[in-house]
């Protein structure tokens, strides 16, 4: 009995492997809603997708006509696919396809080109298929083309990453890797060209990062980033072990102080959601530097960088209170943070002073007035214990909705102190910490601080903002503070826990 059973298992494995060999890898669909897989099937050597699967993310309906063909309706317009003919009529225009739309059981299959060629013109949104990277791009998402080239020159290796069209880039250098984070929704990555002994692997990480893993014996890596009209270029110079990389050939020159390297941190304890608040936006530009730099632009750029770093390194979910240049009221920011049930809130700002020479960071946390102190004292006293079905009690804690921060003052002060201390040893003095009655913090039901990263009214500080080093320093400072906060002592218990919070 054993021999037939083994034969059956082998046969099943063989059939499975044949089936896998016949079906190509799924196509990645990238849209504003995120990324999803679209299964593909090979029919007569052509890649086909099921239109029933497509209907899950595009609004189309399918109907068989009397001749056995298919009628697809999209936003009131029709696509007629005649039976066994490699063409379709799209709203009256004939479009050729590499194969006919065909039926397989109860499912309708169409060549992948059907999507950009036939659905694209009637779907009222961009539908683009990137064949090399197997990406189907829908709508206005950003999917730059990324090409990577490896070269060796003597003992030095160079990795050139080109991103077109240009995109914001942040590089994170570690002892065994360089991570290039690209401000995009997905990457259209071409195969790596060339080879270099100092590079063990070039890996693409979701959603938009490229990780260059260094070979064990390789030395220090140094990165330079430049942006032209058509592309952003990142050059990574890898020196032999024990030598500093020669970056003289890779413009632009590096400043005297090297960019700080991010250090891996342990997982983030009880902190699962971090809210980053890029200050100002839209018509509210915030502080304007003497050279024209706007606070709203700086805070948004740094917030996006922080999101990438915190999510990748700390494994936390990061919510931004705005992710583009639009006006968001202070109440909306508070609501976004509270609705996301954030565990930490950091508001990013650039400072202003009537003294143009004033420089340096400063950190603020909420200061309560008499009313706030009363609210804080009463928060615990007013907790109600209500009986629940099945026995036991449920604690209903009440607190004024616009003074929710009153419950978190000690933790907010600790967060502020960590932010202030993060500059120590990184070329800056510890930042002063001030309690102040700040509007955006008042209603936050989580530890929160407002970080003024520097004075935009200072011309030198404004110039420094344009450099990667300074921006990396600030990102590093916030990252360090949040990771220390997350892995440090647990936040002080709120007056009644576990609590079903109810605001009045």
């Amino acid at each position: 009995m054993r021999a037939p059973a083994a034969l059956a298992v082998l046969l099943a494995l063989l059939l499975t492997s044949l089936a896998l060999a016949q079906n190509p890898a799924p196509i990645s669909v990238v849209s504003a809603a995120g990324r999803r897989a679209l299964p593909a099937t090979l029919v007569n050597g052509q890649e086909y997708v099921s239109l029933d699967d497509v209907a899950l993310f595009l609004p189309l309906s399918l109907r068989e006509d009397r001749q056995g063909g298919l009628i697809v309706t999209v936003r009131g317009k029709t696509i007629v696919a005649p039976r066994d003919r490699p063409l379709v009529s799209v709203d009256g225009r004939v479009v050729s396809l590499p194969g006919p739309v065909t039926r397989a059981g109860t499912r309708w299959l169409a060549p992948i080109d059907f999507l950009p060629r036939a659905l694209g013109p009637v779907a009222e949104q961009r539908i683009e298929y990137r064949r090399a990277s197997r990406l189907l791009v829908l709508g206005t998402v950003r999917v730059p083309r990324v090409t990577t080239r490896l070269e060796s020159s003597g003992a030095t290796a160079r990795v050139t990453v080109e991103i077109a069209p240009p995109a914001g880039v942040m590089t994170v250098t570690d002892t065994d890797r360089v991570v290039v984070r690209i401000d995009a929704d997905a990457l259209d990555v071409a195969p790596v060209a060339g080879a270099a002994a100092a590079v063990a692997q070039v890996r693409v990480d979701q959603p938009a990062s490229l990780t260059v893993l260094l070979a064990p014996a390789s030395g220090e890596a140094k990165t330079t980033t430049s942006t032209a009209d058509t592309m952003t270029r990142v050059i990574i110079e890898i020196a032999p072990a024990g030598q500093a990389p020669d970056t003289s050939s890779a413009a632009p020159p590096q400043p005297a102080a090297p960019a700080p390297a991010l250090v891996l941190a342990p997982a983030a304890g009880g902190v699962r959601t971090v809210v980053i608040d890029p200050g100002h936006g839209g018509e509210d530009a915030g502080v304007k530097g003497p050279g024209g730099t706007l606070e709203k632009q700086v805070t948004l750029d740094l917030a996006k960088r922080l999101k990438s770093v915190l999510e990748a390194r700390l494994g936390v979910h990061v919510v931004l209170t705005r992710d583009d240049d639009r006006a968001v009221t202070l109440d909306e920011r508070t609501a976004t943070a509270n609705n996301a049930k954030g565990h930490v809130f950091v508001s990013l700002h650039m400072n202003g002073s009537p003294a143009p020479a004033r420089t340096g960071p400063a950190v603020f946390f909420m200061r309560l007035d008499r009313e706030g102190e009363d609210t804080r004292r009463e928060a615990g006293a007013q907790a109600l214990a209500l009986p629940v079905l099945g026995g036991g009690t449920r604690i209903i804690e009440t607190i004024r909705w616009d003074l929710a921060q009153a419950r978190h003052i000690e933790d907010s002060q600790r967060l502020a102190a960590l932010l202030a201390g993060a500059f120590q040893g990184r070329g800056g003095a510890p930042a002063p910490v001030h309690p102040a009655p700040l509007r955006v913090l008042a209603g936050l039901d989580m530890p929160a601080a407002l970080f003024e990263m520097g004075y935009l009214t200072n011309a030198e500080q404004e110039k420094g903002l344009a450099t990667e080093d300074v921006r990396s320093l600030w990102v590093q400072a916030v990252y360090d503070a949040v990771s220390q906060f997350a892995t440090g002592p647990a936040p002080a218990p709120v007056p009644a826990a576990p609590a079903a919070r109810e605001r009045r």
Partner: protein
Amino acid sequence: MKRTMLFGLAGFTALALLGWGVNVGLQYLGRTSSPDVPVAPTPPPAPTARITATLFYGAPDGLSLAPVRVDVPLAEGAVAQGRQIVRALLQPPPAPYLAVIPRGTTLKALYLTTGGDAFVDLSAEVSTNHPGGTQAELLTVYAIVNAMTTNLQGVQRVQLLIDGREADTVAGHVDVRRPLERDPSLVRQDPPPAVQ
């Protein structure tokens, strides 16, 4: 004929002498009669009563408020005196202090409550002309709050209104929805110099 001419000449001379005498006499009378004519005396300029108030300007370090003793007009009652203090504060500061209240800001109204709260209604320029930044906004708000609570007895808290309405913030940071208490932590602790 000759005699007639002599009489005429003598008569003319006598008339001329009479006229001169009358003129001199009248001039003499004019000088000596002044005590009898009432003449209104020119009053000397009335001295405006002033008090010395402590105002708060931006310190040269750009981080803090400097208390400066300034003479401001004395006014009748706490509300009028409060107006004088705020108006003085809205003037450009003396060197080397820095202006922390945006240019063009005017005082529209001022109210006091019996509970010790003051409401200072400023024109929209305090917001629209503000350069921004948490530090600068703190200095703006507390220059007014500290001046009112320091100089007006009984005023313990100050709420800023903008164009007659309650506001969330002046420039996006400091919560001015409720009356604020004095913040001595923003004040530089040097002794306040006197400025005339």
